[in-house]
């Protein structure tokens, strides 16, 4: 993913960037440091978006849209899955060495929860990706001119309202 970003954007330092991001992420996962693991994931999201912007600015060849979507969705999935695994590790450490009936039952439930979370996340992310691709194909049938700034801005506003509706529908904000 990082190697697809134009070399001028990262000053030709793709390999060190890959090593740093993966190293920080791996270290965070192994040491149970959620901040490091999450930081690596967020930097990956930043690189995906930043790389795409840089490609446009530098006039480089655009990647396949489906590939871009898969990369973006994969980063989100691994970021969320790492959170689940870190939660599992943290509680497993607390339960380690406790042999009583309730601790054993809690450990079993924790394993079930982890499996259930990963499966549910994978299911939702795959369906979300499929839905996005379908919407992309449907969108491809319509031809919209983006030359007029006002029209484009209006379109963005509509999308933001739709997103806001999707976020808040049936739910209130966290207190």
């Amino acid at each position, binding site marked *: 993913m990082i190697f697809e970003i134009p070399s001028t954007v990262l000053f030709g330092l793709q390999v060190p960037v890959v090593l740093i991001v993966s190293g920080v992420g791996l270290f965070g996962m192994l040491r149970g440091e959620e901040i490091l693991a999450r930081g690596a994931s967020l930097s990956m999201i930043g690189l995906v*978006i930043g790389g*795409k*912007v840089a490609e*446009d*600015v530098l006039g480089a060849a655009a990647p396949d*849209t489906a590939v*871009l*979507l898969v990369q*973006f*969705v994969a980063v*989100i999935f691994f970021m*969320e899955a790492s*959170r689940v695994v870190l*939660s*599992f590790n943290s*509680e497993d450490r*607390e*339960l380690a060495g*406790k042999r*009583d009936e*309730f*601790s054993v039952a*809690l450990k079993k*439930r*924790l394993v*079930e*929860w*982890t499996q*259930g*979370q990963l499966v*549910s*996340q994978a299911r*939702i*992310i795959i*369906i*979300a*990706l499929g*839905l*996005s691709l379908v*919407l*992309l194909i449907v969108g491809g049938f319509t031809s919209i001119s*983006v030359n007029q700034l006002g029209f*484009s*801005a209006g379109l*963005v506003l509509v*999308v*933001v309202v*739709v*997103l*806001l509706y*999707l*976020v*808040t*529908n*049936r*739910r*209130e*904000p*966290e*207190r």
Partner: protein
Amino acid sequence: MFTRKASTYFALATIILVLALLIPDWQLATLVLPLASLFFLSNVWGLPESVKVRLSHQVIPNDSFGDEDIRVRIEISNESNRKLGNVEVHELIPDTINLERGVSRIRTQLRVLEKLEVQLGFPSPTRGHYPVGPVILRARDPFELYLVEAKADSEVLSIMPRPERIRGAELRPRHLGPWPGTIPARTLGPGMEFYNMRGYVSGDDPKRINWKASARHRRLIINETEAERVTDVMIVLDTDVTFYEAAEAELFERGVRAAASIARLLLKQGNRVGMILQGEERGIVAPAFGKRHERNILFLLAAAMPGRAVIPTDYVVALLARLLLPARAQMVIISSLMDNTIVGGIRGLVTAGYSVLVLCPSPRDPVRFDSESEEVAYRMLMLERANTLFALEKICSVSQWPLGVPLSIVLSKVRRARPMIRV
């Protein structure tokens, strides 16, 4: 409700859209599609619209003398019509408590109508009040974009001081209640102690006939006993032990244990007993009778903490005694005598007719001093304390309680003082 994470994803989507508009690049804008799908799917499939859960927790036992393990039982039931895949239950437990069984943060799934019982266990902590809870249940979708929260209020775990079995001191207050007790009333009545002899009259109990005296006087003579009644007692625990530093905790705990033991003994004997905590933290339990009242007193003692008194002890003692106790009742003051103004307060009480017993736990001498000046300071402190003791011995009963001597022995040696008050 939606979480902060949902807001963050929303902000990310908006940034992507604005960038896509500015560049302009529709390929970049398509990244919003998976995010929108994620919101939609998490909202619809991730979490039921109406989440119904029942949550309760119970500390067993919620008061203890510190000699048994404590359990926290958490009961959760899912009354929604769908499975809850991501449930987090968090029992807020003080940092000083180390769980031996279970964990304070539980992650689980809850099937439809499933009831889950979780037990956490830990050894009894030291004396004090510990808030356990609130217990919070958070049901979320797999991506934690949406959240439903349930909460059960916190409970208080009280570790009370265990009262020791002690024998009574010779308390002789002038105020006595009408009910039978253990304090000699200087009048005729049912009791254990011999008081008088008189001639037999019809109806007297034949068991009370003094046969030797009857033979001597050639008529039936019976023994009469001194009535024994109850009284009102106020126990004052002076928590100011701050000058002793090294011996502070030990000295203070002895005072607390003594207060608990004396309160239990006096209540068992049928007296009306109250308690005043005097120090940095103050507390009062008004005088009352009974087993339940003993719990109230022990509950107050569980919260006792050492600390310097903000209000002078003599003022508090004199004021509260007059407010809460009838005239000429009994006061028991447990104090390490750091505050020498206490003498004035006690003198005032004795003048007003109260009987006062001062129980004074003696500190352990330090094994070594860090400097000569520290040793001199300690000696001066002890001299000042000895002066206070000397002044008190003139006006009331004072009992010094050295380390290692059982409280029963100390109290059994208490004799009523003959007050010498110069007016």
